[in-house]
């Protein structure tokens, strides 16, 4: 009896806890706070000081950006090794560390002048020598995409301390906007003695407005301001005394930390649910929004015999319900992408060359006409080969689960079986990037920049990022030619040709452009951002942030 009553009280306790949960939830109401408290008397304007805590989801692979290929590594590197070129509000490249540059009419010679007075954090002057060295070293040691970007360099000539001249093998109109935007310059005085950069323990010596103070991999990275850094705030340097990056396992953990005041700004773009949370307290938090330079897409592997059939790709393209993906799965945190090139770049999508629209009946007809007949399981097949594909995607892509389920539901309505294959990042890289062992992939490109001249990097038949194994001579030719056409208008026309061919061929189906949102605490002011890689954490923007 004693035992029984004990157990009974246990059950009652559980029921009470559950009841508490129910009432707590039932009574929750949104409270809109009155905004606009007048505290003008307290505003003091920018001053030096303060520790800004940046929350990021996922740990940077390495602090040496030349050996890593992830956004978090690049974000950290951007503070210590800021790029030569940055984006303006329209996503166009403008000089940053560069003071001036000149491209010859044949697009084969670039003369670059950098700002004077920048030093490496160990005191050694930052000069044109470092830039020339980086070009040579990345190619020699095949360091990531840097090797590809500098591959076209025939000769570099250091003219004086601040001037360097590049002679290219082939004309390339976007040489500087690519190299300048993507490559972090290497310290010559450190790396000239390094034979094995992949295993070299780089200590973070840079030339940026912040220098690395200490870090613990997987946990935090602390940076401190470089006094009187010449390109920030008229030679004063950044306002923030220190910037601390904290690594979080996921967006919810990051959001909670922000709401608790442990984190002041999100370095990783936030999901819509998190944005709404912060927007609910406008007195404490703000959200900066900007259209992404990348996009989400489904890609087809041409190794798969069935996917090599243009009709199958076309039918799949017609099953993609962009409205549902943008409004339901992404909760309105994106815009539809109906053209091969992102609508961010307005000149390039004026031609309005669109992917086949969402049309399930049309998709059925395409498959029927091509000889794919429904079998007893409701899957179409031809010559005994079933239209059954594995769709591989990364579980870490926000809302990927919802997106692929919408895709699957519609594909199966027309008789194409889709088996979902959610994997972690390492497995994805191995299967898709290295082995190219997949049927259909879904992923988001972080950034596709200079699309008037750079799409060769993903669609040309011999490029590393062409995971599809897509090969089309006409497209190869256009993408090759466009790189040496100095006239912008002519490039736009050539890219229209490309888009016409693209929507016939459909090596990928591009679906949406994310709206990147970054929450910030109103304890800090001076925020700004442009379409780019790092939101408000880009060095050029972060130097303007100050504590209220």
């Amino acid at each position, binding site marked *: 009896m*004693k*035992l*029984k009553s004990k*157990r*009974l009280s246990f*059950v009652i306790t*559980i029921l009470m806890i*559950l009841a508490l*949960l*129910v009432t707590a*939830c*039932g009574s*929750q*109401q*949104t409270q809109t706070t009155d905004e606009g408290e007048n505290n003008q008397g307290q505003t003091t304007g920018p001053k030096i000081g303060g520790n800004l805590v940046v929350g990021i989801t996922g740990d940077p692979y390495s602090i040496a950006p030349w050996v890593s290929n992830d956004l978090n590594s690049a974000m950290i590197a951007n503070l210590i090794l800021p790029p030569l070129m940055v984006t303006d509000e329209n996503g166009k490249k403008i000089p940053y560390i560069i003071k001036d540059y000149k491209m010859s009419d044949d697009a084969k010679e670039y003369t670059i002048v950098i700002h004077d007075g920048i030093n490496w954090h160990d005191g050694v002057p930052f000069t044109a020598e470092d830039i020339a060295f980086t070009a040579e070293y990345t190619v020699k040691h095949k360091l990531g995409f840097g090797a590809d970007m500098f591959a076209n360099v025939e000769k570099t000539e250091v003219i004086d301390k601040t001037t360097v001249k590049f002679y290219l093998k082939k004309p390339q109109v976007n040489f500087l906007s690519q190299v300048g935007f993507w490559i972090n310059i290497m310290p010559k005085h450190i790396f000239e003695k390094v034979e094995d950069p992949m295993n070299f323990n780089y200590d973070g010596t840079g030339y940026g407005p912040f220098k690395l103070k200490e870090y613990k991999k997987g946990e935090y990275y602390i940076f401190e301001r470089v006094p009187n850094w010449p390109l920030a705030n008229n030679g004063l340097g950044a306002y923030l005394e220190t910037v601390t990056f904290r690594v979080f396992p*996921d*967006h*919810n953990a990051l*959001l*909670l930390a922000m709401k608790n005041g442990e984190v002041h700004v999100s370095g990783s773009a936030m*999901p819509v*649910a*998190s944005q*709404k*949370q912060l927007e*609910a307290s406008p007195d404490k938090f703000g959200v900066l929004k900007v259209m992404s330079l990348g996009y989400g897409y489904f890609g087809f592997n041409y190794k798969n015999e069935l996917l090599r059939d243009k009709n199958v790709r076309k039918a799949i393209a017609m099953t993609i319900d962009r409205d*549902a993906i943008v409004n*339901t*799965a992404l*909760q309105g945190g994106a815009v539809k992408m109906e053209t091969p090139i992102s609508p961010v770049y307005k000149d390039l999508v004026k031609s309005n060359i669109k992917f086949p629209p969402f049309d399930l009946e049309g998709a059925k007809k395409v498959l029927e006409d091509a000889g794919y007949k429904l079998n007893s399981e409701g899957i179409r097949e031809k010559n005994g080969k079933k239209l059954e594909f594995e769709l591989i995607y990364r*579980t870490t892509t926000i*809302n990927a*689960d*919802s997106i692929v*389920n*919408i895709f*699957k*539901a*519609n594909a199966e309505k027309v008789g194409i079986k889709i*088996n*979902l294959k*959610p*994997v*972690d990042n390492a*497995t994805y890289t191995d299967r898709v990037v290295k082995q190219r062992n997949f049927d259909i992939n879904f992923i988001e490109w972080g950034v596709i920049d200079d699309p008037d001249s750079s799409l060769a990097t993903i669609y040309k038949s011999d490029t590393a990022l062409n995971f599809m194994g897509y090969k089309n001579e006409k497209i190869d030719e256009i993408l090759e030619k466009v790189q040496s056409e100095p006239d912008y208008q002519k490039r736009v026309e050539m890219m229209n040709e490309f888009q016409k061919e693209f929507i016939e061929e459909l090596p990928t189906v591009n679906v949406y452009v994310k709206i990147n949102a970054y929450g910030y605490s109103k304890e800090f002011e001076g925020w700004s951002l442009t379409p780019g890689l790092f939101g408000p954490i880009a060095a050029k923007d972060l130097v303007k942030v100050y504590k209220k």
Partner: protein
Amino acid sequence: MHEKKSFFQLLMRSRLTVVGLIGVLIIVLMGIFAPFIAEKPKGYGSEILLPPSTNHWFGTDNLGLDIFAEVVWGARTSLFVSLVAVLVAIVIGVPAGMISGYKKGVIGSIIDSLIDIFLTLPILPLMIVIAAVIGSSILNVAVIIGIFSWPSLARVTRNATLKISELQFIEAAKCLGIPTGNIIFKHILLNIMGPILVNITLIMATAVLSEAGLSFLGLGDPTTWSWGVILKKAWENGAVIDTPNPWWWWFWPSVFVTFYVISFNLLGTGINDILNPKPND
């Protein structure tokens, strides 16, 4: 015949055991008849994040799918995982326990120390590592959970076997020259079914907790509906901390995990009380 009947009568005498039994029955029926209760949730709809109503008893999720249907199909997954885990645990644990209890000697002590080693292993981290390595399918998850559940079953089996094998009728059977296999299966196994049964109900309960945990950590199978998967989706989409809160999204799967675990625990404790009618405190 008389004995069996009284066992059931004893079982029905404890009200909490009856509650547990009914709970188990409800979940089993839900799992078996899932296709008749609710259509398998898939695809997407337009009624996003609706609170519970007569149309959607448990509300809808971010894709407009019915959460009641997800929970019902989740019961099926939970049962599947538990049963596979129990099966794996029985296949490894019962023979291991019986051999170690009956044979004693070197083989017995080797198995015995193996059980001890397995019992001290940090189970959850190991499960996470293995699940991450071999990949997330629901069968993999179930087998992993089973592999880590056998030691407790083996320990219980061993102790019971030890007790039985010292009794005189086993000695007699040995003297009569009855083959060892016959002794083990006919005479010992039948007599130790009770403790094994109790342990199985406990494994059923913990298996569901483990599955929910693994799924929540993203190591389950996101293409199958399970209570852990529903919770993970709710968490991923910010439903747990959102204001206003779509509480129905995370609340119902949590309730059912709790309900499942309590039901099996009550049933297990009830059976145990009948088999060991000593007061525990």
